[in-house]
């Protein structure tokens, strides 16, 4: 039987969620049940990266994850990433570099880059880190300012 209650830790706070349909995506749970609209809905097919959140510290496409499958996980969204030291560094780097325009891809980029820096940090060569950001699409910036921000966030982690 489908369990009726899901437990998630969202941005450090435990939350119990009742009556989530089995086909609901984590993206929709975050946005429409928990009101965390900072996580963006883009293509819903895992191709744009706008919905990226951290699940147990790893970049995850919340549009391709059933909420029930995340039961017990620790989820971090853009609303909570500032409490993570690496996340704070990434936010500051984006802010200083002006690495955003419309801003719609920005939360996904921040989460993806935070995940990568936590995973590999400076042991990952710069080019590989940039290639690893290829799953996050941006239509405004041409990525130039995002690359500047990513390089600077990586350096500051030294």
């Amino acid at each position: 039987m489908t369990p009726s209650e899901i437990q998630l830790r969202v941005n450090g706070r435990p939350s119990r969620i009742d009556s989530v349909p089995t086909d609901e995506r984590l993206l929709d749970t975050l946005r429409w049940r928990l009101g965390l609209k900072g996580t963006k809905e883009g293509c819903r097919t895992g191709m744009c990266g706008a919905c990226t959140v951290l699940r147990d510290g790893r970049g995850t496409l919340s549009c391709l994850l059933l909420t029930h499958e995340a039961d017990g996980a620790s989820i971090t969204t853009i609303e909570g990433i500032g409490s993570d030291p690496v996340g704070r560094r990434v936010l500051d780097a984006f802010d200083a570099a002006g690495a955003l325009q419309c801003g719609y891809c920005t939360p996904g980029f921040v989460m993806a880059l935070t995940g990568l820096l936590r995973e590999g940090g400076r042991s990952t060569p710069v080019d590989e880190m940039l290639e690893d950001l290829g799953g996050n699409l941006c239509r405004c910036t041409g990525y130039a300012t995002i690359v500047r921000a990513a390089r600077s966030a990586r350096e500051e982690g030294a």
Partner: protein
Amino acid sequence: MPAFDLVAPGTSDEAIAELRASDPGEVAVVAGGTDLLFDLDDGRITPRKVVSLRRLPWRTLDWNGPTLTVGSTLPLRELENDPELRRRIPGLYAAVRAVGSVALRHQATLGGNLGRSAPASDLVPMLLALDAEVDLVGPKGERRLSVDRFVIGSRRTALAAGELIRSVRIPEARPSAYLLQRVRPFHDISHMAVAVAFSPTDARWRVAVAGFPPRPLRFPEAEEALGGSTPGAADIARAAEALATRAPIVADKRASEEYRRQLVRPLLARAIAATRIGDR
């Protein structure tokens, strides 16, 4: 509009029992979920029950001498991050990195990729060149099948009702390479790919091609043409010619047949050149 029941059994026996309790057309399996959710959105499948593998102890990776065994629910990114993989099976490392994005690979699994069995799978051709096998568990116990026998066509495999992929066994680490062609170099679907591996045991090459329907395939004629460990330019040309003219390559919406036949020549030559034999 009842959604499906979602169950997450803790043992493989329970999982198999859950599968058996439903009509095969009404039950689906979720591992990473990255393909399943596409199919649900499309309405391609409308299961009444979905069996989640998330609680099964199959997120494993084991090296045993030359043999690598990967649990079917291990996220691909964890396979990619294994420090041994890049050095010992470079072709598989390249193939894993060719799948989706980092975030997708944190979710997607090797078992899921095999279960989906896409014609453009980046993993299946490499697994073919590595003579990989799948270990299945089901109502009748366990069985082992070569990937070649397991994969039939798009969304079609030899998996019987009630069976699950438990792990994938790569019998020996091999010098190998994986090269692909896409319209967009990153984060795209490969419309032509060549996987090669050289077996130190029998000193023979394996060659697999992918990216077109119905499924990735080995091409023994090219393997024979390559001969032993250090194929000369003429051998490579003969192997490429065999692939380009006689492999069952077809067109689809992503590339024409003639373009694919042209591509297979440089991809094969480059893959052979990129394979470093004798490092070990």
